[in-house]
């Protein structure tokens, strides 16, 4: 079928018909996985809440395995596919390369996801999403994940192909837009990641059907985290791109410096691959030198990149707001931001929560010696619920408030509820992350069904504060599930019942992006340099929290038994 191009009358964005349909299907599939993941989240949290302890042990581990897979892999990956197609075909106003391959990728991912879920719910594959050998799942558990990975790789290939198409058809001039550049980094990291994944999942699949006798347990952990960690970098690159996208759409914000922001994305590619070491800091099989090298130099360059984005995104917003005249004091630009617009509020909560909670806790957790205080405790899921949930998931939720009218041509229903949803979800999830980290600091284990150790030969009584933290975990977890459920309800409700919007003109040829350098020279002098003092204050606040919390943990460490 030939390509047609629709220009959205509200946003001016131009959608090619194949890309548009793929984005819709991928986004909807993502939302459905989020729904399954959300139901499992509720069951997990109601079981870990000591006062309720809903499920029996076997069902708890089954459901927790499903929660990890359906959320971390399926929800996120499907939505990211939509982001990739948007950042290529839509932002570059060109046709999508090889839509058939993109559909093949979609169906492979969908079937793979279903196959893995069947394996999990049959009950023989409660191995958690990390599936550490030698604990073995049913062969189709691994097979499904492999299908998902192959499908995702096809989607990534279509993204690359689309960039080539845009270049060849000259639909834009000069360099890629920053958001597309960010998506490109995500796609490059994804390629490496999926190859590492193939390197471990294929042998593991063969082992599960008996063709390979043994897989070294330490080697598995190392290669698996080459997949598991790097895929989190895809998420970071993707949600940072979404932050820039939001800032551009809501404020017309332009990057403070293209050079700095692109350089920061580049650092992700160069250094995040190597950071998988921080999952192995308390493992026996690696030397301290290897751990220090891989977690310091390499990881800190990636941390630096995130700190740069954490500065330039709000900085770009501040500069745009100040140009509009919100120049009073340090924070008028922020006070006068559209807090009632869920696209903005969600994005901003995502930024703050990811930086202050996810970022700081991640670096502390990733410090070689300090890791021993937290490894495999509840601190770990606490940390990543403030990265992949309040960071990535919330950013994706926020941008959806924009996509529903623009991409699906439906008005969001119940605007009042749309307004409060990012606050409900973002704040309760941030608090959930914090209290999980609190429980972990007191030693409480992750992936653990019973704080009372029923059936054990001895007793161990956790401190009362640990039970208190776990109680809070229950309360804020339920609130977070309500916040997430509300989002699904609003989105699905709007897709079904929202007022239909005008789709705009359809044409058979793409309208290229006007040459920006000409457009710019006309207004160049209106956009002189503006300072961003408010952002500086926020960044320094982050830095102070970071330093204090980092050294507090060294203090804790110095108080435990001596180890050498």
């Amino acid at each position: 079928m030939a390509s047609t191009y629709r220009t959205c009358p509200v946003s001016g964005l131009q959608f090619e018909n194949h890309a548009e349909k793929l984005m819709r299907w991928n986004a909807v599939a993502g939302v459905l996985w989020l729904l399954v993941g959300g139901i499992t989240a509720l069951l997990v949290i109601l079981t870990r809440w000591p006062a309720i302890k809903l499920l029996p042990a076997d069902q708890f581990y089954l459901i927790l395995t499903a929660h990890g897979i359906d959320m971390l892999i399926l929800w996120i990956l499907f939505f990211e596919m939509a982001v990739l197609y948007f950042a290529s075909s839509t932002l570059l106003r060109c046709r999508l390369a090889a839509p058939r391959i993109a559909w093949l990728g979609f169906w492979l991912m969908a079937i793979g996801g279903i196959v893995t879920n069947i394996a999990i719910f049959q009950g023989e594959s409660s191995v958690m999403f990390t599936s550490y050998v030698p604990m073995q799942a049913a062969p189709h558990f691994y097979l499904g994940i492999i299908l998902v990975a192959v499908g995702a790789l096809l989607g990534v290939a279509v993204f690359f192909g689309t960039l080539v198409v845009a270049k060849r058809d000259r639909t834009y001039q000069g360099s890629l837009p920053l958001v597309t550049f960010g998506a490109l980094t995500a796609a490059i990291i994804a390629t490496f990641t999926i190859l590492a994944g193939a390197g471990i999942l294929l042998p593991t699949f063969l082992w599960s059907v008996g063709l390979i006798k043994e897989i070294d347990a330490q080697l598995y952990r190392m290669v698996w985290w080459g997949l598991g960690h790097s895929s989190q970098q895809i998420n970071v690159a993707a949600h940072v791109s979404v932050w820039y996208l939001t800032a551009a759409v809501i404020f017309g914000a332009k990057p403070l410096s293209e050079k700095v922001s692109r350089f920061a994305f580049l650092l992700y590619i160069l250094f995040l691959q190597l950071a998988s070491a921080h999952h192995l800091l308390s493992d026996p099989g690696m030397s301290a030198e290897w751990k220090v090298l891989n977690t310091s130099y390499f990881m800190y360059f990636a941390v630096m990149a995130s700190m740069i984005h954490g500065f330039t995104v709000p900085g770009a917003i501040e500069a745009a707001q100040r140009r509009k005249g919100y120049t009073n004091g340090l924070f008028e630009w922020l006070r006068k931001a559209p807090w009632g617009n869920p696209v903005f509020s969600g994005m901003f909560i995502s930024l703050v929560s990811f930086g202050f909670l996810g970022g700081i806790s991640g670096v502390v957790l990733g410090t070689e010696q300090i890791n021993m205080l937290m490894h495999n405790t509840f601190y770990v899921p606490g940390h990543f619920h403030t990265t992949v949930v309040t960071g990535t998931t919330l950013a994706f939720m926020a941008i959806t408030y924009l996509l529903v009218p623009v991409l699906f041509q439906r008005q969001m229903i119940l605007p009042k509820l749309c307004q409060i949803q990012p606050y409900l979800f973002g704040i309760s999830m941030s608090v959930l992350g914090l209290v999980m980290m609190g429980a972990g600091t007191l030693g409480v284990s992750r992936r653990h069904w019973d704080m009372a150790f029923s059936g054990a030969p001895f007793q161990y009584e956790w401190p009362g504060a640990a039970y208190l933290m776990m109680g809070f975990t229950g309360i804020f977890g339920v609130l977070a599930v309500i916040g997430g459920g509300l989002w699904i309800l609003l989105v699905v409700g709007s897709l079904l019942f929202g007022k239909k919007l005008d789709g705009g003109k359809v044409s058979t040829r793409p309208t290229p992006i006007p040459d920006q350098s000409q457009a710019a020279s006309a207004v160049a002098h209106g956009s002189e340099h503006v300072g961003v003092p408010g952002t500086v204050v926020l960044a320094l606040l982050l830095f102070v929290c970071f330093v204090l919390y980092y050294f507090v943990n060294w203090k804790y460490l110095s108080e435990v038994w001596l180890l050498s």
Partner: protein
Amino acid sequence: MSAILPPSNRLWWKQPIDKVEWAWIAIAFVWGMVMFAMMVYWHVYGNQNLSNEAYKTTPELFAAKAEKFIAENTIRTETEQAIPVVKVPAGGDGYLIARLWAWYPILELEKGQTYKIHLSSMDYNHGFSLQPVNINIQVIPGYEHVVRMTPTKEGTYAIVCNEYCGIGHHSMLGRIYVK
């Protein structure tokens, strides 16, 4: 004009970087170096570093060494399962087996003495989580990890398993006495 359009300045890489941005990049860089230096510093001057000493092993080999250690050093048994309580010789080697779903045996240590505790798993991954001290170490089958520990306080300590190891994971609780 904005992040969703090509940079308006074709030669964006020639645009100077603002002082404030430079300063922030410098702060981030220096802070990264400080954190790097902290880890190295702690290896030299700190007292809590995870041992580098590890060997490839097999469950059979490790179990044999542990059984020998238990046979030679048991001082009593405890609980209905008659779990041996083994006094680790001061400054000597102690063995701790992780298996579905127990830490075996019970170790007895003395405050202020340094012990070489050998950790390994007979089956799946397990997690050595010493409570309420809160030291957490991954235990992996096929690897014997020799960790030097010096208890600093007397008391009865629990070893929680904090790596998921199957349906009995929550009942995998061990014990260490420090006299």
